[in-house]
C-alpha cells in the first residue's frame, strides 16, 4: 500500500472515536429537503449516493415505490413524486430513447 501507515492510522483513530459518520450531503436542488427527510429513516441517504449514477428516472421511481410498498415507508403520493423527480435529476441517468 502506497499511503503512509501513519496517515492511515491517524485517520482510523479519529474514525473509531466517532459513533457514526454523517451521510454524505445530498446535492442541493428542488426536493433535496424532502429526500433527506424521508430517506434517512431506515438507512442513511448514503444508500442513494451509493446507487448512483446509473438508475433511470423510471428505476428511481420504482425504488421510491418499493420503499413504500415493500418496506412500509410512510410517504404520500405528492412527496413521493417530488423525491423521485429529485433523484432522477440529481442521481439518475437519462431515460433510454
Amino acid at each position, binding site marked *: *500500500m*502506497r*499511503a503512509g501507515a501513519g*496517515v*492511515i492510522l491517524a*485517520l*482510523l*483513530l479519529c*474514525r*473509531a472515536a466517532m459513533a*457514526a*459518520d454523517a*451521510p*454524505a450531503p445530498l446535492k442541493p436542488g428542488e426536493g433535496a429537503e424532502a429526500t433527506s427527510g424521508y430517506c434517512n*429513516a*431506515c*438507512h*442513511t441517504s*448514503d*444508500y*442513494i*449516493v*451509493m*446507487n*448512483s*449514477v*446509473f*438508475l433511470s428516472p423510471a*428505476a428511481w421511481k420504482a*425504488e421510491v415505490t418499493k420503499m413504500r410498498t*415493500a*418496506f*412500509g*415507508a*410512510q410517504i404520500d403520493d405528492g412527496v413521493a413524486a417530488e423525491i423521485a423527480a429529485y433523484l432522477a435529476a440529481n*442521481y439518475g*441517468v437519462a431515460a433510454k430513447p
Partner: protein
Amino acid sequence: MQRRTVIAGGGAALLAPVSAMADGLVLPPELPDGTRQIARAANLPGKTRLLRLADRPPNYATPTDVFADTITPNDRFFVRYHIDAVPTPPPIDDWVLTIGGEAAVQDARLKWDDLLDLPQVGVVAVCQCAGNRRGLCVPHVAGVQWGDGAMGCAEWRGPRLSDVLRVARIKAGAVEIYVGGADSPPVPGPPAFRKSIPLAKAMDDDTIIAISMNDAPLPLLNGYPARLVVPGWTGTYWMKHLNRIEISATPLANFWMKTAYRVPAGLFPVQQPFASQASETSAPITEMVVNSIIADPVEGGEVERSGFTVSGVAWDRGTGIRRVEVSLDDGKTWLDTLLDRPLGPYAYRRFSLDTGFLRRGQYRLFSRATSNAGERQSDVLKANPGGYHNNVPRGISVTVV
C-alpha cells in the same frame, strides 16, 4: 480501454484514476462513482480497517488483501445488515433459543449450557453475501454496491442444527425450517428479517449453529452469540443473533423469501433445488457458484520485474476446487497455479503462481477456478435483476517496474 468505458458508462464524464484509494484501501474502478465517493476505511467495535459502504445499517466489506490468507480473521470479517438493528445481547445465562412450529412435536427452549451439552462440530466454510460483487456488474443494478469483500472464510463451531431440531422432534410432513434473529426493524415498516431452509439442508451434518468463530466468540457484528451456518449456501440463510427456530409444514411466505434473494429459474443450475420455494419463473438463490480472487498483488500495485507471486483464494458450493488458472496477459493465455492443501470442501482453497521474469509495463491479471464438479467461472456475466452470482473472472491492473 475497457475500464474507461465502464466508468464513462456510469453516467459521469469522470477521468478517474485507474484505481482509487479510500484511506489507503483500494477500490475497484468498476464500482459506481457514487459508491467510490462514499466508501472509506473504518474501524468498529471488534473490527479493524474495513471498507465502509454504509454505517446505518452497518455494511462493511473486507479489503481484498485480507484474502491472501485462507482464514479471514474475525476483526476483518465483513459486516452485513439489512436493517439498522444490531441487538444488545443479553447476559449469556439469560439467552434462550426457542424451537417450535406446527411441525414440531413439542416446543423447546434451549439455554446456552444446553447448546454446549450437545456434540460440537467444526466446519471451515465460506460465508459470502448473495450480493457480493453486485457493484461490479455492468450494467449496474440497485442494491448495496459490494465489490469483492462481502465474504470471508472462518472455522465455525457449535452444535448441529439437526441435533437441536431433534430436541423438539420433527413431525412427518415438515418441509422447511424457519429461522429468525434478535435484530428487528428500528421503525415500523420493513418486514422482519426471517428466512427458511429446506428440511434436507437443515438435517445436513455440516449445517450447524455456530457459537464460536475461529476459536473465539462470534463478534457482535457477525451474529453473537449464535448464528446459523449453512455451508455452500449464500450468506442470506446464515441467520445472525439466532433466537427462534420453527419447524414448518408450509413454505415461508415473506418478502425475504418470495421477493428478494431470487434468481431467474434455470439460470444457475444447483445440485439440491429448494423446491418448496421455487416458482415457474424464479428460484431462491442458494448454492454459491465457483469463484476466485487474486489477493496479492492488489489492484494498482507495483511489482518487480524479477518476478513475483500471484496468490489468492477460490471456492464453490462445496464440491471443492480442483484447478485455478491465472492469466498475466489480459485473458489471452492461462497458466496453472499451485493449490494449497484443502481445508475442507466449503473452505477457501489458496492458489499461487510464481511469474518468473516479466518485462516492464502494465499488466492485467485474471484468475479462473474450476470446481471438482467440473464447473468453471463464467466467461460472461449472467445478468439478473438482483446482481447475484457474479463469477466472471476478476481482472486487476498492476505495473511491473
